[in-house]
């Protein structure tokens, strides 16, 4: 029987040739779709490509009309590029690795309006998760809303005790004090000091009535042993009393801390009650946060999102890394990457260049070049941080310019640092709405700056905005400004200068935001002058009301805690005295007994 079916070679070759032709015919559309899909999945926002051309002979790919939607605003593009050329490394491509030797983008525009809104990326991919998680992160900031309720609407404050934190805390503390008292009684009961002391005292009384010389050697030895046993028991009781004292001190400390919490809770209740009255705010930091807190957080949130993506797609270290497998009818599984020193990373852009030409009358006019170096999926393998920078390559206006730089350093797993800085001068700043007020701020042409750094989990960021061409617009359709809103409007509408400075700091889990602007003081001073006295009176009334509701519930708890502490200390002291008294009596008897023994009998040291 033959092993090979030679006559099938021809049809097989034909079949393989058809596959090769199909691959050739459909490589570009398939690559285009795959790039769009992968780009969308990786960036968490819609990526569109107009056309993709493969130049196999040059190992190059041309992309036309690339659009990347803004994940935070589906109506606009983050970036749009007319032409992109990727010169690939053919040797790396043979290893199924994408090493871009040179990336050139032309006709780049930022923040353009999309013809159709982008589809939000859903699902459990990393990017949508990261987007959700940075949105949750943004919710951690307690940004105040500027309350400008007229003071004459403040009438009567009715407080429900069950809503007050102090009352709840006091109730919980009373329960703890009660359990501490019961626990202490239980411990004394288990210790059974009375029985130990009574038994020792009975022994001492019995020994006092005996004469060692009449007891004889055996009788004396027996009496000494009984005394030693009783002294040991007393010693054990003393140690137990010491332990109990330590426990009492610990419990007392905890209850004292609980009392301090009551003071903190009362401050919260003042704020809560103040909130019920909707008293107007005239604290400058609060006004700054109310005006510019949300817009500042939006900026930091975007920076954090891209940092999170960088950390996910550019992990440090040389250990095998897992990526989700390709989507198919069968299970996707997981693709495991095996980085190797002195081999190509899975993805690397060695050098990316973006040429920007801003012409016309814009103060930004001039030619710019943006450079990206070392953008890679395996930073440790590449050994150098990723660098992004822009620079002006031709003469332009001195008053305007764009400076962007970023450093993504994931080379060392122990020291992961990401930082970015963007300075824009002479640019048209976007219009801002003031939350809670019908005011719209158009900063006009000015300067903006964003600095953001994440070192391990510690972040620091600064966003600032300045302009001297500010225009204010009133969007009061459908409602009339009240007196305080009118007052604030008169203050802000007269201001032509704007200077905002927002800073974020702290750990990722507990970030802190501080915002200040030149508006804060102006508004705060004006509000203070007009309504300060009335607000102060209302706040005094609020504190008095809270105190009156809370006092009746806090004072008994305070007394209860003091009583528990003093009772415990007093009982411990008296029990210790009793033990020590009988111990002294027994020591005296032991001395007397041992004096009557024959000199050759050496008693062991008791070590008491």
């Amino acid at each position: 029987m033959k092993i090979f079916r030679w006559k099938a070679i021809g049809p097989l070759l034909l079949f393989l040739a058809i596959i090769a032709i199909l691959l050739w015919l459909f490589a570009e559309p398939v690559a285009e779709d795959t790039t769009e899909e992968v780009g969308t999945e990786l960036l968490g926002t819609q990526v569109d490509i107009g056309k993709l051309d493969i130049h196999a002979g040059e190992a190059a790919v041309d992309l036309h009309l690339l659009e990347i939607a803004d994940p935070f605003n589906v109506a606009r593009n983050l970036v749009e590029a007319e032409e992109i050329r990727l010169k690939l490394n053919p040797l790396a491509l043979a290893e199924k690795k994408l090493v871009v030797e040179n990336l050139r983008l032309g006709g780049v525009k930022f923040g353009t309006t999309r013809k159709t809104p982008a589809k939000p990326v859903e699902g459990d991919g990393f990017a949508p998760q990261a987007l959700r998680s940075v949105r949750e992160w943004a919710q951690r900031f307690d940004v105040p809303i500027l309350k400008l309720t007229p003071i004459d609407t403040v009438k009567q404050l009715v407080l429900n005790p069950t809503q007050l934190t102090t009352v709840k805390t006091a109730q919980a503390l009373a329960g703890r004090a009660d359990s501490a008292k019961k626990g202490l009684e239980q411990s004394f009961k288990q210790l059974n000091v009375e029985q130990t002391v009574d038994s020792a005292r009975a022994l001492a009384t019995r020994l006092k009535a005996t004469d060692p010389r009449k007891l004889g050697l055996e009788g004396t030895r027996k009496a000494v042993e009984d005394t030693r046993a009783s002294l040991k028991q007393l010693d054990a009781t003393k140690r137990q009393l010491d332990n109990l004292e330590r426990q009492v001190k610990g419990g007392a400390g905890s209850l004292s801390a609980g009392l301090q919490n009551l003071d903190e809770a009362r401050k919260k209740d003042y704020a809560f009650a103040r909130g019920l009255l909707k008293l107007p705010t005239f604290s400058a930091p609060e006004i700054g946060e109310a005006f510019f807190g949300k817009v500042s957080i939006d900026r930091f949130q975007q920076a954090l999102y891209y940092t999170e993506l960088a950390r996910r797609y550019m992990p440090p270290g040389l250990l095998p890394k897992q990526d989700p497998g390709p989507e198919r009818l069968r299970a996707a599984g997981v693709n495991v990457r095996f980085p190797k020193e002195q081999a190509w990373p899975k993805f690397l852009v060695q050098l990316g260049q973006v040429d920007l030409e801003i012409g016309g009358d814009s103060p930004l006019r001039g030619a710019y070049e943006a450079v990206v170096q070392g953008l890679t999926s395996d930073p440790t393998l590449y050994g150098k941080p990723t660098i992004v920078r822009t620079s002006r390559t031709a003469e332009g206006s001195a008053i305007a310019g764009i400076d962007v730089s970023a450093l993504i350093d994931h080379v060392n797993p122990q020291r992961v640092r990401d930082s970015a800085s963007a300075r824009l001068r002479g640019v048209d700043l976007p219009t801002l709405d003031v939350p809670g007020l019908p005011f719209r701020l158009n900063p006009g042409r000015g300067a903006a700056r964003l600095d953001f750094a994440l070192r391990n989990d510690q972040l620091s960021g600064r966003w600032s905005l300045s302009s001297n061409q500010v225009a204010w617009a009133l969007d009061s359709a459908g409602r009339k400004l009240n007196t305080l809103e009118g007052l604030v409007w008169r203050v802000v509408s007269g201001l032509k200068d704007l200077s905002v400075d927002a800073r974020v700091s702290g750990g990722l889990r507990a970030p802190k935001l501080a915002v200040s602007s030149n508006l804060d003081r102006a508004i705060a001073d004006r509000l203070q002058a007009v309504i300060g006295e009335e607000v102060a009176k209302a706040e005094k009334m609020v504190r008095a009301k809270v105190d009156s509701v809370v006092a009746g519930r806090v004072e008994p708890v305070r007394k209860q805690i003091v009583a528990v502490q003093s009772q415990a200390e007093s009982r411990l002291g008296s029990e210790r005295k009793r033990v020590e008294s009988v111990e002294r009596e027994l020591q005296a008897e032991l001395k007397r007994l041992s004096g009557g023994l024959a000199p050759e009998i050496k008693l062991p040291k008791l070590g008491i």
Partner: protein
Amino acid sequence: MLALLKLIQSIIKTLHSEGTPGQVAAGMALGAALGLTPLMNVHNLLVFSLIVILNVSFGGGMLGWALFVPLGFILDPVFHAIGLQLLEAPSLRELWTSMYNTPLVPYTNFNNTVVLGSVVGWVVLAVPIFFAARWAVARYRATIGERVQQSKFYQAITASKAYNIYRLFRPE
């Protein structure tokens, strides 16, 4: 529809007279790779070429493919677990690293857990599949094969013109 008809023809003819039970079983063992492992992978092009070139039953190959496709879907979680174990095994890391960084080898997708697990699964199952299939085909032919051959359904199927194309790959 034509493809389905061809498949039914090939299966029925395979079970009757085309090749020895050993040739049919070898075809089925090879065809099982197409069903058990994710289809669009380089190793399957090689397996398909072997089914065509080697003097095994092509119909057996198609039958094996058809029979093992549902099993492949069912066993995907098992294949993933096997692949992950192998790819994460410290003793094999050097081998995988070397393969991963060797030209062309990564195009086999060996570093995908389901692909690796299913290929290993097929290699392990290929020999039992061969012996089980050889026994089953021999039993079929010895028992109900003759009666099926006389049925109108069989006559209709084998009379189809499409069947003639398929005959090109009959084992010799």
